């Protein structure tokens, strides 16, 4: 049998694919963070809570209104996006003129409040959310058994990542957004409603997090703590990719997912720190991150 580093090729391919699946979540979440940081200069610590909210909205929609997964995939990001927009309009926007640290503290406090409330209401134990029937089961790829749902996650998150990137880099709306962060006053002088643009951006970031939350619900249990577990890793991804670099966040998300997956084979005990080791090395060699423009 062919082996790579002493591991059968089949097992190696399997682990590679699993890394890609986890990378999809990292990419989706760090994308939202990168959009918010790149355009608003806000370090959004509430991103994990918004991801958790997405999963919970899907769960509650199912429990109380019988709304299925596919509709939840649309509705939950919308609800959480609106919630994000509301937060931005009423609270976060007041902090733009202050040191970025205030935004960080505010969103951190917000995350604790949201998570605490859900913990109080629903307990810390996870609640199950079933895989939609049309994606149940799995496919034997020859080298591994791939659950259909996980295949779907890879495809749909790739589409979402590409879509967001195109929206910001290639459309008129995206160019307004980028211009607005470069020079707010000038853009406003052209008659563009900059505050509205910023609200939209934060809403979009929150919606992306919620979208990832709904995708995650059938794989993990829906629990108030699910965001806390992930947010630190996702921050590391953003730092490695280069703060604010959207393409960097996407590529790094997938890359680190794979690096983590392979660590789980070669030295499993280190699998939860490998991302941070990579982050430390990148910060030493390229402080602006792999895709960052300047230091």
């Amino acid at each position: 049998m062919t082996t790579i580093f002493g591991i059968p090729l089949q097992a190696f391919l399997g682990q590679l694919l699993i890394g890609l699946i986890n990378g999809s979540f990292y990419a989706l979440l760090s994308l939202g963070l990168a959009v918010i940081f790149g355009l608003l200069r806000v370090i959004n610590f509430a991103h994990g809570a918004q991801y958790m909210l997405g999963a919970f909205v899907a769960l509650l929609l199912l429990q109380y209104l019988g709304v299925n997964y596919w509709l939840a995939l649309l509705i939950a990001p919308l609800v959480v996006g609106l919630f994000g927009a509301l937060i931005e309009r009423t609270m976060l926007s007041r902090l733009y003129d202050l040191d970025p640290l205030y935004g960080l503290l505010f969103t951190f406090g917000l995350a604790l409040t949201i998570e605490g409330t859900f913990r109080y209401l629903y307990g810390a134990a996870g609640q199950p959310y079933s895989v939609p029937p049309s994606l149940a089961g799995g496919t034997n790829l020859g080298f591994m058994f791939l659950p259909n749902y996980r295949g779907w996650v890879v495809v749909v998150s790739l589409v979402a990542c590409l879509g967001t990137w195109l929206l910001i880099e290639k459309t008129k709306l995206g160019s307004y957004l980028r211009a607005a962060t470069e020079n707010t006053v000038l853009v406003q002088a052209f008659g563009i409603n900059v505050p509205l643009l910023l609200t939209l951006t934060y809403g979009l970031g929150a919606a992306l997090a919620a979208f990832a939350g709904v995708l995650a619900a059938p794989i993990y249990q829906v629990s108030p703590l699910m965001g806390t577990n992930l947010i630190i890793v996702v921050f590391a991804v953003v730092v490695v990719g280069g703060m604010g670099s959207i393409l960097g966040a996407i590529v790094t998300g997938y890359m680190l997912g794979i690096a983590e997956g392979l660590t789980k084979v070669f030295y499993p005990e280190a699998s939860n720190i490998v991302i941070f080791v990579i982050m430390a090395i990148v910060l030493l060699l390229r402080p602006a991150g792999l895709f960052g423009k300047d230091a």
Partner: protein
Amino acid sequence: MRTRLIASMAVLLASSTAAYADASDGVVKIGILNDQSGVYANFGGKYSYEAAKMAVEDYGGKVLGASVEVITADHQNKPDIASNIARQWYDTEQVDAIMELTTSSVALAVQAISKEKKKIDIVTGAATTELTGAQCSPYGFHWAYDTYSLAVGTGGALVKEGGDTWFFLTADYAFGYSLEENTANFVKANGGTVSGAVRHPLATTDYSSFLLQAQSSGAKVIGLANAGLDTSNSIKQAAEFGIVAGGQRLAALLFTLAEVHGLGLEAAQGLTLTEGFYWNRTPEAAEFGKRFFDRTGAMPNMVHAGTYSAVLQYLKAIEKAGTDETEAVAKALHEMPVNDIFAENGKVGANGRMIHDMYLMEVKKPGESDVAWDYYKVLATIPGDEAFIDPAKSGCPLVSQ
């Protein structure tokens, strides 16, 4: 204002003198201390408090003419918080005994305080055998299960059922290692082999990589030496990757009815585990289960039923001793057999271990379960003397060797 202050102080003084004058201060107070908001909230939690109250009501609400009161608090899985609450309960709130005590670190801390204060503690929620080993107490009891009994049940009995090659998925900390080691010993003692193990960090969210390794090991049984959400997530994801459907067996080393319910039968089917109680095993247990369900909306697991049994036995012991004084009650607890919905002919060892039968269970397939919460098939009964360490060999200094 001043008169009121003096008056209230007088009342306070009077009541506290009364407390010292009468050994049983007119009230027997039991404290249920456990995790009510964290990862073990369903494992024990407020349901244990409810079970304790049921025991008091079933006993008639009074013992030796004194009324019985149950109070509760959340220790958040932190030994320091638990210790503060325990001291406060003993020192200022006249609590006579503390029970439940989920999480080993907390149980050990509170048992040490109880020993120092000469108070009774009965542990149902924690797993460590230390409680009745090196750190045993003359007033400390361990009621429902321990790591040893889980390992005997799942490790030993499963090999006899044909599961003779094992692969472990182990949480990378002391609890996981000791559970893996205990279980591996029983597997080998019964003629089985261990083909490998993979250590995952605590609170990992994605197990697919580890599960693939377990899958390709070809072992007949995959032993999950982890707890709480870690176990739930591993099982859920194992189902996703078709591990049980592919003919391998999952053995959760610490898993109860509450967690099975959280997962749902679709994901949990075929899982093997050891518990000290199952509500649908005897008519008496079923009757208790239904009453418990009416109050809580959940069926009891071994921690809840064990807490019920512990409170009931404590009250019986006070009745027998004729006082709620610690030495006498502890003596009665050591002497009396335990016969209730939880244990049949249970006995308490000199190290404080309550020795009773344990059961090896298999989780039913969705089609096999016709009543709500009917989740287990009882595969085997493990007699108490095999399920628990012989008190003489427990390492407890109180046992005369």
